[in-house]
């Protein structure tokens, strides 16, 4: 057994800093590179792509990245774990196989799938599973014919098995972000399935890694002006030990900061009840976490407590819910806000005259209240204001006509308006989110391998 394992985060979301994973693998020693590409909305977009082309539905940026780093990863014995597979992990793995063959890299690719239950919803309902909305309690019948994607969040299990079978690059569908970090810890240290304190430590490590530089100085609201060289921010690295203790750090020659403040902000990010942070592997008590700055850019994390998981897995479903669009106009001093408000009123009247169908029209005044809401103050001092007016409708045509009401304001509204040329984007499809549960015994991860010899 290795004394310590270094797990590096290379990507906090699809679209994150392109160079980050390359820096992680070239600037210092690591054992695992973990890459997160999936968000709630991503699965439905990928499912739509797969409907149009059965060879699509995965994170293409991951394939591009592998062209750059796969041979280096092999050479340095760095294992790669990523949920880039999206709704088509097998096709994603085939793309990686092609790269390996072209570059003559001997590698075993592991594929963890079985999370996509879109085509099995009805069968599962027939045995009595209701798929009620976890947030609202609504019955699923209201969205039945509109479901676009349905993916079970698996835990670390499938990845652990792939590692045991020698996989060096593991591509998954929907697994929990934290599970991708927990898996190599279970595998390397032989942690028991019932050793909940250790599993919970791994989940905390995963939570700290899963949003990339958000734990190394990015988006940190404390002393942000003093955080060095964010242009070359180092993504987080966890150095973990078999007792569950770990250290959060980053490569020495990188920007950013690792402090109790930067790590704490990430720990409270997107959590619910901190005593009961539920994942498929265990329940983690975030109120047990202890942090200690041991040296510059090194924070020790210890004392984490965990409990047995629930008997359920979370499913992320998405359903088609109409279209949305936005238009923007920029208003200048004097009285920028007053002018923007008058223009908003005019657009709304003209839209209302057309007698179209909207679920919602929503206006904000960027520069005044789009972030602060009713806490906004000092309106008379504004140099300029951007009116951002959005609409949601189940009728795409209504939205197209809505958008046509925005540019005319330039010649038919209050004075000092510009920026209208960017005001005609296409209506976008809306996929609303339907969180729900499924008993664990009804689904399990499937694992496949592609070996390039």
């Amino acid at each position, binding site marked *: 057994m290795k004394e310590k394992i270094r797990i590096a985060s290379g990507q906090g979301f699809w679209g994150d800093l392109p160079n980050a994973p390359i820096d992680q693998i070239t600037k210092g020693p690591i054992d695992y590179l973990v890459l997160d590409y999936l968000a709630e909305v991503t699965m439905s977009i990928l499912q739509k792509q797969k409907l149009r082309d059965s060879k699509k539905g995965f994170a293409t940026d991951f394939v591009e990245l592998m062209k750059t780093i796969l041979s280096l990863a092999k050479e340095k014995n760095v294992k790669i774990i990523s949920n880039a597979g999206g709704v088509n992990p097998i096709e994603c793995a085939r793309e990686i196989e092609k790269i390996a063959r072209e570059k003559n890299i001997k590698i075993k690719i592991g594929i963890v799938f079985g999370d996509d239950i879109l085509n099995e919803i009805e069968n599962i309902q027939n045995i009595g599973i209701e798929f009620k909305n976890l947030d609202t309690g609504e019955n699923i019948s209201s969205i039945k014919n509109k479901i676009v994607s349905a993916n079970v969040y698996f835990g670390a299990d499938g990845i652990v098995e792939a590692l045991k079978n020698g996989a060096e690059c593991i591509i998954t569908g929907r697994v929990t972000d934290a599970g991708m970090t927990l898996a190599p810890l279970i595998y390397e240290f032989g942690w028991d399935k019932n050793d909940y304190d250790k599993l919970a430590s791994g989940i905390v490590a995963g939570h700290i890694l899963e949003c990339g530089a958000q734990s190394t100085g990015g988006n940190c*609201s404390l002393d942000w002006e003093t955080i060095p060289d964010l242009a070359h921010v180092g993504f987080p690295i966890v150095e973990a030990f078999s007792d569950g203790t770990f250290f959060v750090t980053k490569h020495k020659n990188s920007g950013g900061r690792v402090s109790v403040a930067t790590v704490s*902000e990430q*720990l*409270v990010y997107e959590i619910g009840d901190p005593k009961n942070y539920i994942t498929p592997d265990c329940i983690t008590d*975030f109120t047990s976490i202890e942090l200690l700055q041991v040296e510059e850019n090194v924070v020790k994390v210890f004392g984490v407590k965990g409990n047995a998981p629930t008997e359920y897995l979370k499913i992320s479903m998405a359903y088609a819910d109409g279209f949305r669009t*936005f238009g923007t106009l920029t208003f200048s001093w004097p009285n920028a806000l007053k002018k923007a408000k008058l223009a908003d009123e005019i657009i709304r009247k003209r839209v209302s005259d057309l007698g179209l169908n909207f679920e919602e029209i929503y206006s904000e005044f960027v520069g005044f209240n789009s972030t602060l*809401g009713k806490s906004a103050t000092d309106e008379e001092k504004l140099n300029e204001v951007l009116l951002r007016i959005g609409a949601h409708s189940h009728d795409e045509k209504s939205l197209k006509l809505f958008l046509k009401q925005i540019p005319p304001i330039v010649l038919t509204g209050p004075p000092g308006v510009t920026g209208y040329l960017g005001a005609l984007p296409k209506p976008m499809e809306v996929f609303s989110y339907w969180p729900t549960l499924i008993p664990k015994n009804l689904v399990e991860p499937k694992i496949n391998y592609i070996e390039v010899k």
Partner: protein
Amino acid sequence: MKIQLIQIAHARSGDKGNSANIGIIAKEKKYFSILEKYVTAEKVKELFSDRCFGKVTRYELPNLNALNFILENSLGGGGTRSLRNDSQGKTFSAVLLKMEIEIKERMEL
């Protein structure tokens, strides 16, 4: 005395579906009791009454000198549907840090 929360705390916010969470962290241990005493779920609900149409729940993390607030039904349908500039509640933390509270304690800031 009157203080603004940004003087004693830092914060980060984000989304889970149509709920937002705001984690607010005291800059020093001694300020945590001020947060705990004065920044109640009711006050946060009032602060976001224009945008939060559901329940506000507060959780305490004394180990991190932090409070965590969950604001249900507050993102206009969540990141995939919302018409808002901040559809994921990323700047809700700033709204909370701008909040002013009247405290009985005297402290050097």
